């Protein structure tokens, strides 16, 4: 189980470093417009942070890896660096960085405070403008050094793209092991880059579809505990679990409302499955759909006003949208094949889905009115998209033909930057956390 210290707040203090060469006008030379699909990655030099041990190099490595995986940055190989940064508080020799085509430069320093905390300082430089773009410092416990690196990577991403980053986040997923006919499944949590994996449940019961709370260190998921398949809540800090509601049949496919106060899910009764919400404070339940069909995979719009869900009321699974009170149920998917697992983007502009067509399983996105469908990846079996909190990257799971099990992948909205997220064993049902507090 988790140690509670794992989730204790990391940052005690953060501050801006005074800008160097403040006299230089900030001509925004270095910027990336994410909205222009298939952006050319920006060459960036991430130097080893100065420190009296290997931590400085490790932190810069994590920063460079985050930026590279985003597909928007191309970290330059360190062996090409000419200038060796001796004092990160002094302006670098910009000519040395321009000549290796580094459009942006990251310098920094790690020092140990008297109370044992780490101080991490970094500066981001625009080499062609010859100016500092930003500089910040953070204080944290030494064991949280990876988080500091992710926070710095987020700051760089935000400065250059104008969008919030997503590196200081976690992913909860189902860790799978063993042969297909006797597969064991555990809930697990990890950093978004696949590090710091921890198991949250044992292998005794089948567990499926974990989803993060938008507001608390809490996960809702489905477990077959006691051969009673039901939706649960799990407090990540304490390991405390509870059943969500007291329903007469199987409850499944849970997800939080955007304010974290409700769980929306399917309840199965005989052959039908309908969508319900349960208010976590008042414990009142509300039925939202009422059909002799399978209604499942509900997902709220970020403003809480509408809900996307999947239904086979028309014959095969398709995506529908309804108002939060269940009124106005409207089908939005009309392409070939069937559409499942709609997930509303945290930005509100798109709905991601799993599409089954022509013997293939694809991950795609469409606008909330069903227009503008785009397939991002397609193959033998891709399923279950989840959004990074900035709405620019999706994670999903893929099962290839043949033996073996599912693996986690991420892909950006352009569909060009697809990467495996390596896990210790098979992985499925990823769910991205919000940006950590």
């Amino acid at each position, binding site marked *: 189980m988790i140690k509670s210290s794992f989730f204790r707040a990391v940052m005690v203090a953060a501050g801006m470093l005074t800008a160097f060469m403040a006299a230089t006008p900030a001509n925004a030379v270095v910027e990336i417009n994410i909205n222009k699909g298939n952006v050319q990655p920006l060459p960036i030099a991430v130097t080893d942070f100065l420190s009296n041990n290997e931590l400085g190099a490790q932190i810069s490595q994590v920063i460079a890896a985050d930026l590279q995986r985003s597909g928007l940055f191309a970290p330059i190989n360190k062996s090409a660096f000419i200038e060796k940064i001796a004092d990160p508080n002094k302006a670098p020799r910009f000519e040395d960085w321009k000549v290796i085509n580094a459009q942006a430069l990251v310098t920094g320093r790690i020092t140990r405070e008297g109370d044992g905390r780490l101080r991490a300082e970094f500066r981001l430089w625009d080499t062609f403008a010859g100016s500092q773009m930003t500089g910040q410092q953070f204080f944290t416990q030494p064991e949280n050094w990876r988080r500091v690196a992710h926070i710095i990577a987020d700051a760089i991403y935000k400065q250059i793209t104008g969008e919030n980053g997503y590196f200081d986040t976690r992913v909860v997923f189902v860790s799978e092991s063993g042969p297909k006919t006797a597969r064991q499944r555990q809930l697990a949590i990890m950093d978004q880059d696949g590090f710091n994996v921890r198991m949250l449940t044992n292998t005794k019961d089948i567990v*499926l579809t974990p989803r993060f709370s938008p507001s608390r260190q809490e996960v809702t998921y*489905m477990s077959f505990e006691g*051969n009673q398949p039901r939706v649960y809540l799990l407090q990540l800090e304490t390991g405390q679990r509870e059943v969500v509601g007291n329903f007469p049949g199987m409850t499944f496919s849970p997800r939080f409302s955007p304010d974290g106060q409700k769980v929306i899910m399917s309840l199965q009764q005989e052959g039908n499955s309908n969508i319900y919400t349960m208010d976590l404070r008042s414990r009142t339940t509300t039925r939202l759909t009422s059909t002799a069909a399978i209604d*499942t995979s509900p997902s709220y719009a970020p403003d809480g006003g509408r809900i996307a869900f999947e239904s086979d009321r028309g014959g095969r*699974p398709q995506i529908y949208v309804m108002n939060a009170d269940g009124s106005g149920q409207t089908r939005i998917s009309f392409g070939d094949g069937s559409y499942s697992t709609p997930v509303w983007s945290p930005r509100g502009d798109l709905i991601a889905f799993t599409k089954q067509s022509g013997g293939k399983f694809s991950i795609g996105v469409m606008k909330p009115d069903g227009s503008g469908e785009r397939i991002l990846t397609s193959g033998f079996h891709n399923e279950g998209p989840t959004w990074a909190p900035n709405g620019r990257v999706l994670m999903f799971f893929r099962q290839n033909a043949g033996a073996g099990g599912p693996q986690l992948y991420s892909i950006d909205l352009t569909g060009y930057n697809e990467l495996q997220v390596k896990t210790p064993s098979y992985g499925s049902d990823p769910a991205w956390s919000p940006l950590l507090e």
Partner: protein
Amino acid sequence: MSRIDTSAMSRMQILARNPAVIALTLALALAGCANKKNLPNNAGELGLNGAGAATPGSTQDFTVNVGDRIFFDTDSTSIRADAQQTLDRQAQWLARYPNYAITVEGHADERGTREYNLALGARRAAATKEYLASRGVPANRMKTISYGKERPVAVCDDISCWSQNRRAVTVLGGAGM
């Protein structure tokens, strides 16, 4: 199109994908079917097991001589003609041995999403339970549970396995809802 042929020959081909089953089959053949306990559920249909060898009224009698499972077409929950025969035998057997409660487990093949397949498995279990009820099995002796696509019995990448996994299994005792 996706109906499976239940003849012993095609079943043999399906099972032949699993080396363990072949080994077991050979071992049983060599041992003259001495060890009935390790028989796979559908071994009776392979003709390797003399009917009635199991103790009448036992779990083994039910799985081997009656047949504990039925299969479904893709994305379908309707009870096929071959499945009706199996369920009719189950209902007769359950009438003869009224002390057993049952759990019907519904399953789906892997060619669907996790959430939808949980619901589809539940629908198959419900349809099976409903059919058994229509044949006189009291509803209060029956529970259902869906495992979706999470508990396949046959593993390969084509219809020969998927058709084995789209099933409802009647388990004596068992625990469902």
